[in-house]
């Protein structure tokens, strides 16, 4: 993909990010931080690509380390967010 298209997408994503997040209530700021945290774990996709193209054992080792770290970010982030949000769920919520 050419540079201008990527730049366009980046700029649009900035606006979507600002729009979406400015609607989040302060009650949910902690899950928001944690949820956004989980999303950047998607660097896993990049780590997998690099590991998949590695031929040198050292490169492979570093790439696999990146895969482990990114997976921890991604999986841990979503699990923690889910646990927090579970508590905001419906059980016994009436006064």
């Amino acid at each position, binding site marked *: 993909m050419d540079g201008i298209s*990527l730049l366009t997408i980046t700029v649009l994503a900035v606006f979507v990010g600002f729009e979406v997040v*400015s609607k989040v209530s302060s009650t949910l*700021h902690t899950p928001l931080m944690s949820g956004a945290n989980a999303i950047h774990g998607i660097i896993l996709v990049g780590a997998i690509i690099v590991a998949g193209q590695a031929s040198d054992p050292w490169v492979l080792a570093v790439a696999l380390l990146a*895969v482990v770290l990114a997976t921890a970010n991604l999986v841990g982030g979503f699990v923690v967010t889910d646990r927090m*949000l579970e508590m905001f769920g419906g059980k016994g919520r009436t006064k």
Partner: protein
Amino acid sequence: MTLLAPVWTALLYLAAAVCFILALRGLSSPRTARRGNLLGAFGALLAVATVFVSVKMDNIPWILGAIAVGSAVAAPVARRVQMTQMPQLVALFNGVGGGAAALVALLELGHTGDAWVRVAIVFTLLVGAVSFAGSAITFAKLQELMTTRPVLFPGLPVLMGAVLLVAVGAAVAIVFSGSFPLALLLLALGLMAGVLLVLPVGGADVPIVISLLNAFTGLAVAASGLVLGNVLLVVAGTLVGASGTILTRAMAAAMGRKVTGILFGAFRGGSTAGSTTASDRPVRSSSAEDVAVLLGYAQRVIIVPGYGLAVAQGQHTAAELALALEARGIDVDFAIHPVAGRMPGHMNVLLAEANVPYESLKEMGEINSEFRTADVALVVGANDVVNPAAKTSAGSPIYGMPILEVADARQVVFLKRSMRPGFAGIENELLYEPQTTLLFGDAKESLTKVLGAVKAL
């Protein structure tokens, strides 16, 4: 095995990006939040599955093994962590994400001859390393593995300046030469910069820095998306970068701080006022029975929960106490400071865990005018967020932070472990006021005693 056509790959990545946007959007209401988060996780799964069928890859068993290891380490930790330790876990996960981005950028350096791609590479390398090392220090501070007070030493600003200057020099050289040894140097400089950036930040400001580093990791991921020509990484990273920026500003505003002041205030030596030692002025302390009488014959009670409640796991007992008081016809509310606990909204998470109904949770702007009508303000393990020094003492590190105005209540009861100052390391004048009573002890034990005494009234 035939690979997926690029157009299908692009569409699947697009679907994953939409899942991420919907995940953040879901957080606009507690009702849709959990579904949104699960959709986000589904998007991530979709993206990972897509990469395996769209790029020709070797080492697949190794990669699957690494994913298994990462999941096996993170999932149990995430499942078992106590809600009070949430902020440091978020910092930790953020740090490893930043580290992964830096490593990916390092390895991509050998694959490109394009100077613009190298610009994105040096950016990812530096920002990812800062995020990794900075998050490690925030983790250590929150876990109290090290002091929560600002760590300063002479020459810190000079050292930081030198590190950044050399880093910029190395970055420029890498863009022109693609030198791998210089990239390793840049990585090391980034790690140093991350440590130096967070060391001078005081305990109370650490959560804001976590949010900022979260945004940094997002930007590093977006830049690595540019390196790999992967639109999903660009979109996801940018989303996180933008949301992290907003959140950081909202948090800083809630504490009456400027982000630049938090990061660089300590360099100017302005935010180190205050003491860690308690003075020996007299205070009025009391027994659980007396506190119960005070509460039991009030008409209106406002409970102000803080971090002390959280560490003692006292949220369930506090909820029970509120129910017991309501059973006596007393009007009870919880006053939630935006940064009660250790992150914005953290206290809401904890009280939600204890099934305290939403209607009882009042935010600062709403409740502050109501303290005047309250007979008792019961402060459980909070200190900094009710400290009038934020309004009156210009030299104080928390000066300017909006506070809960418990001083307006007719009586103020503090449940405190000791006279030790709070997270910000400053004394609370309110403790010495005539309308203030203290009940010393662990928040949960004290609450249990008070609850028992209220039931016996």
